[in-house]
């Protein structure tokens, strides 16, 4: 439409060499590209990359942020050796692994089941789906804080409901105070909050399967069970893997919700990597040591995510 209305301009474009056109019409595309990307890169360099380099530098020193005037000495790899041989760090990594394994497992199982049910398209599914999605939009810190209220042994709703259903006295157990229960308390809250996330991604996966594939399977008299195993599951798998990737990265970094619920306690049973890091950096003020731990964590999450994305692409292209 536009083209035909201005035959002259069209002709001009055709005869004028590219760079000249650009110069006449203002900035060249190349300049615009850099003008547009530049500010974002600058912000990321200032707030992400520069601090990252600083962290790496600090990790080789004995610097303590609460003693800015003390002499800073290079200590070589001592911090890294100390981190990797510290039993507390390994305990934190173990707690993180436990948390990751169970939250992801539960969220995938419940999330997939929910998505599968919602995909049956019953009346009012839009309304119920919206209701289910609400928890994942809330502030994790605020969620941790109000679940601490629900978990109160004497007065909390959670203990009341459990005692109502099982008959155990509501004051006989403390989800946040007991060494056995606290790791599960944080898993329950995370699952409550993030199952909708996995559900939503699984639902997209289920809806991406075209109907004709199932119709063809019907024609071939494949049983519903068979259809599930050889159509539904393989086609939803890349979506599930994507959800696991995002949940994995997020929960590896988990800090806010758990900090408000248990702050790592009782003892250090729920002390996840980020909570240990916060204690070292902002309570014990061992900045150099904490920096080394931060670098190790970043390399771990970055490396694992990279390997995982390769596996994901492999499954997707199969």
């Amino acid at each position, binding site marked *: 439409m536009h083209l035909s209305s201005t035959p002259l301009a069209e002709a001009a474009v055709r005869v004028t060499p590219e760079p000249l056109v650009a110069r006449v019409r203002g900035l060249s595309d190349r300049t615009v590209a850099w003008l547009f990307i530049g500010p974002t890169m600058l912000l990321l360099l200032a707030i992400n990359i520069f601090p990252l380099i600083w962290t790496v530098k600090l990790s080789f020193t004995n610097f303590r942020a609460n003693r800015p005037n003390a002499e800073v000495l290079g200590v070589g790899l001592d911090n890294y050796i100390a981190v990797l041989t510290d039993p507390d760090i390994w305990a934190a990594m173990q707690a993180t692994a436990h948390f990751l394994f169970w939250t992801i497992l539960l969220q995938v199982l419940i999330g997939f089941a929910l998505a599968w049910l919602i995909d049956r398209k019953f009346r009012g599914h839009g309304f119920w789906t919206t209701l289910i999605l609400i928890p994942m*939009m809330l502030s994790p810190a605020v969620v941790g804080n109000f679940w601490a209220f629900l978990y109160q042994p004497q007065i909390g709703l959670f203990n009341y409901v459990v005692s109502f259903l099982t008959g155990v006295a509501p004051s006989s157990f403390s989800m946040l105070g007991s060494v056995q229960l606290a790791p599960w308390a944080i898993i329950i809250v995370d699952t409550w909050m993030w199952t909708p996330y996995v559900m939503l991604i699984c639902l*997209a996966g289920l809806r991406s399967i075209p109907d004709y594939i199932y119709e063809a399977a019907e024609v071939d008299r494949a049983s519903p069970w068979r259809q599930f195993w050889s159509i539904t599951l393989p086609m939803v798998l890349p979506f599930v893997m994507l959800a696991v990737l995002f949940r994995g990265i997020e929960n590896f970094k988990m800090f806010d919700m758990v900090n408000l619920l248990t702050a790592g306690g009782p003892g250090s049973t729920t002390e996840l990597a980020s909570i240990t890091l916060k204690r070292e950096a902002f309570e014990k003020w061992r900045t150099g040591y904490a920096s080394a731990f931060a670098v190790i964590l970043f390399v771990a999450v970055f490396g694992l995510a990279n390997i995982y994305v390769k596996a994901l692409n492999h499954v997707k292209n199969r």
Partner: protein
Amino acid sequence: MAGVLVALYALITIVPLAWIILTGFKTPSDAISYPPKVVFTPSIDGYCNLFTTRSRQTPEYIAALPPADSACEQKARDANMVVAGTSNYVPRFVNSLVIAIGSTVLSVGLGVMAAYAFSRFKVPLKDDLLFFILSTRMMPPIAVAIPIYLMYRELGLSDTRLGMILLYSAVNVSLAVWLLKGFIDEIPREYEEAAMVDGYTRLQAFRKVVLPQATTGIVATAIFCLIFSWNEYAFAVLLTSGTAQTAPPFIPIIIGEGGQDWPAVAAGTTLFLVPILIFTILLRKHLLRGITFGAVRK
């Protein structure tokens, strides 16, 4: 059958939230009663305690005062106290608003430009740059906070709104670039090309053709950025303590006489969550895209 199970899950999942909203309307004694009270006489104690600070006075002193001029004042006097002033909740809420809006404007502004460039131009190392932008999200916030804490101390940005706006913008810009690139990819190039043939420069075409076409995407992206900044806790608790403190680190430390004042905490939580509930409903169609950085589009 499927419908019944889904509805059942939805109802169970909403109970904790409903409980907190209810608790905001209880008296402190109702809030901690056993068994938990589902039916109770609504009270504004929680909201009064959220917005005011109170001090204890002798009954003689209170008797000598002129009649109470507000319901909250009356409540306080019934408990042998007077309202001493306003609490910090409103300033913290305002900080949350200013920081969330400021960082959203900045990150969406930068993001839409970068996204356009990545979508339309041959940028050298494009995939590497995009992956780099995404990878800045993989850092645990506490790890980022260590050098930021030191850097802000040097620059005088500690506990300032500007510092928090810049920090949240840096976190959000990665989401903004990825999401907006997806939205802009969906706008046919032919529109701008036609406009440029008509004599628009590249920048004019961007402003007058692409931006209006991308409005939905920009709004959806902006809401995601708002929600992130609104909900953020780790940076806020480590880098702000007073003037720039946002609501999430403040709500858990609302305490009354003799421990945590649960109705006030619940009231503060409820008011804090209302904007999120509205946004969730507005965003429904784009939710999936937002939470997967545009990887799943449906």
